[in-house]
């Protein structure tokens, strides 16, 4: 069977994917904004550091006024920075100013390009020292240069760590990790929500699936959401049209039966009269042959019409029907017939469950066919046992030759006949089988009949 795609699965998948894409897009935009803010913040830190370090450096240089401005030894481990990630590692800077050694370093130089003050981790030389105030990149690191016009001193503050990048990545990770963790939960939530939203469709689908030729009851309209109301309405209209068409088909089949039976009855009766009037005339044998052919034609037409009615799905009943009166009526027909009277023995068990959802005509056809088969193909003049119950079971047993299992297996096929010389249409058991299939029952054929050494038994399990 071809695998069919699921709307719920597709919806859940696409909704999850869509949500993820929007989440990623939102995170990307946030990252961009955040990066810009971080850049500004770190740049401002650089600038503020330059503004504050230069006066300190100038004073330090001024305290050595006897020597005048000149090159000083590198200042060891100056730490500064407003927002150290590891505040415990702070140490004293110029004037006791606390700086973070990992983030900034600096150079103080004069207009001639002579480096006057240098932090320990600052480069000893630079190919070109900036003269103008502003941001720039030095050896791939962000830096800020500031020149004090009064002292002719300039300072270059450079970042020495990847704190800027690390902060950005930390922020990005903070945005994306929850997404990764929440994706399964999100998908589960979407799946459950979609399933809940699609439940009315499932109910409608199951309701429609219950409809068949035997059940064309209106769909359950209550509790259906507004989106499904047009479907329910249209399906109800379709079922109405289908019901009308099937009713017409059933009526046509029943009417055909009526229209066909009357001329056959006329022909048969006239032939019988002709045979009676001819008496011992040589032509009487031919008339007998015609009569036999007419009977066969009548039987065949009857069975074909039964099949035709079955194809219109008439066997199942919406209401429970008491089948006992029907069984008695069928048995009465056979008892009153001079050719079969006295050959039927009906036994109804007190525990028989004969109130079933079966069309009484279909049940009468099924029992009638089984009894007719038993009378026709069973041992001549033997009694046919019709037993109802216990339970929803009706069994017809007859004495006669045992039917081989391979023949038994195909007896319910249309136009299939057992090892019998009696005339038959080969449709009787097929009709019974079709009736029980339509009503949810089962036909079981056995030979020899249960409890006997010979014969044949057809058991109808009605449910």
């Amino acid at each position, binding site marked *: 069977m071809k695998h069919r795609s699921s709307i719920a699965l597709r919806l859940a998948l696409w909704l999850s994917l869509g949500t993820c894409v929007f989440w990623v897009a939102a995170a990307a935009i946030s990252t961009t904004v955040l990066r810009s803010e971080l850049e500004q913040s770190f740049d401002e830190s650089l600038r503020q550091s330059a503004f504050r370090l230069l006066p300190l450096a100038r004073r330090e240089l001024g305290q050595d006024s006897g020597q005048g401005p000149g090159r000083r030894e590198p200042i060891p481990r100056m730490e500064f920075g407003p927002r150290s990630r590891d505040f415990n590692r702070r140490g004293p800077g110029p004037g006791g100013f606390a700086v973070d050694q990992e983030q900034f370093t600096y150079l103080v130089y004069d207009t001639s390009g002579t480096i006057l003050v240098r932090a320990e981790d600052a480069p000893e030389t630079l190919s070109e020292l900036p003269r103008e105030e502003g941001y720039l990149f030095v050896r791939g690191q962000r830096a800020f240069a500031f020149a004090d016009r009064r002292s002719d001193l300039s300072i270059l503050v450079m970042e020495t760590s990847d704190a800027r990048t690390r902060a950005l990545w930390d922020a990005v990770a903070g945005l994306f990790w929850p997404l990764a963790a929440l994706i399964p939960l999100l998908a589960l939530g979407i799946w459950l929500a979609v399933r809940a939203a699609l439940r009315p469709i499932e109910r409608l689908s199951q309701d429609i699936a219950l409809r068949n030729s035997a059940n064309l009851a209106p769909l359950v309209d209550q509790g259906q959401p507004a989106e499904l109301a047009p479907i329910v309405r249209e399906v109800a209209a379709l079922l109405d049209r289908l019901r009308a068409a099937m009713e017409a088909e059933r009526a046509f089949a*029943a009417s055909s*039966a*009526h*229209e066909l*039976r*009357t*001329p*056959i*009855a*006329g*022909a*048969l*009766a*006239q032939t*019988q*009269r002709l045979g*009676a009037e001819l008496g011992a005339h040589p032509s009487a044998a031919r008339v007998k042959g015609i009569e036999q052919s*007419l009977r066969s034609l*009548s039987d065949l037409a009857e069975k074909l019409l039964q099949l035709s009615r079955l194809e219109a799905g008439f066997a199942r009943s919406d209401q429970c029907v008491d089948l006992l*009166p*029907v069984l008695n*009526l069928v048995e009465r027909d056979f008892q*009153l*017939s*001079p*050719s079969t009277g006295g050959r039927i023995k009906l036994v109804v068990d007190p525990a028989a469950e004969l109130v079933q959802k079966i069309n*009484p*005509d279909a049940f*009468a056809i099924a029992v009638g066919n089984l009894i007719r088969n038993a009378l026709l193909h069973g041992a001549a003049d033997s009694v046919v046992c019709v037993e109802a119950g216990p339970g929803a079971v009706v069994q017809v047993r007859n004495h006669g030759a045992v039917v081989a299992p391979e023949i038994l297996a195909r007896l319910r096929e249309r136009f299939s006949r057992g090892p019998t010389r009696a005339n038959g249409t080969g449709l009787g058991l097929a009709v019974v089988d079709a009736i029980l299939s339509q009503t949810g029952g089962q036909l079981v054929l056995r030979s020899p009949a249960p409890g006997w050494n010979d014969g044949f038994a057809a058991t109808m399990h009605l449910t």
Partner: protein
Amino acid sequence: MRILLIEDDHVLGAAIRDHVVADGHSVDWMQRLDDAQSSLQTVVYQLILLDLNLPDGRGLDLLRRLRSAGNVVPVIITTAQDQIAIRIEGLNAGADDYLVKPFDLSEMSARLAAVARRSAGIAAPQIVLGQVNVNLATKSVSVAGKGVAITSREWAVLERLLNRPGGLVTKSEIEDSLYAFGAEIESNAVEVYVSRLRKKLGHDLISTVRGMGYKIDR
């Protein structure tokens, strides 16, 4: 018996009529309900063969009218409809039996005789009248164990008398059993058939009620 056959199909109706006549009964064949209604107002029938679907209405309506008027004449429905509901409806409406078309004429004869017997209150088809043994089912008669051949007309007279055991059957009632509408009634036909029956079955079997009719004492 005088039987009313109500059947609109010409071919079938003619065959049934001929067969019932051959059985020794008289038959009035009507093809419409209104004609049948008129016949019922003028003739007392011993049995009606009633088709359900007729050009001017349903046979069941006629049956209901009959029963509501207190008419208990036995009715056998002949129908091409095999629906259980219609059969039950027919029986509930007062039908004594029904035959689904197509049916064997011999079966129809048997059903007809069985219904007539039941209607006359005769449970068993076997009637023993002294030395005379009559089987209503097989239409056979024997006297002191020896079979006696009787004609269909003679049988019709005998059956008519047997259907009212110990009761008077008027000459006109017997004539009704022998002749249908339009048939020319021979003035002394009843006397002739009664005489023949006495000759074959014994002179004491049928008593004459002077000026009124005949009866069989049981």
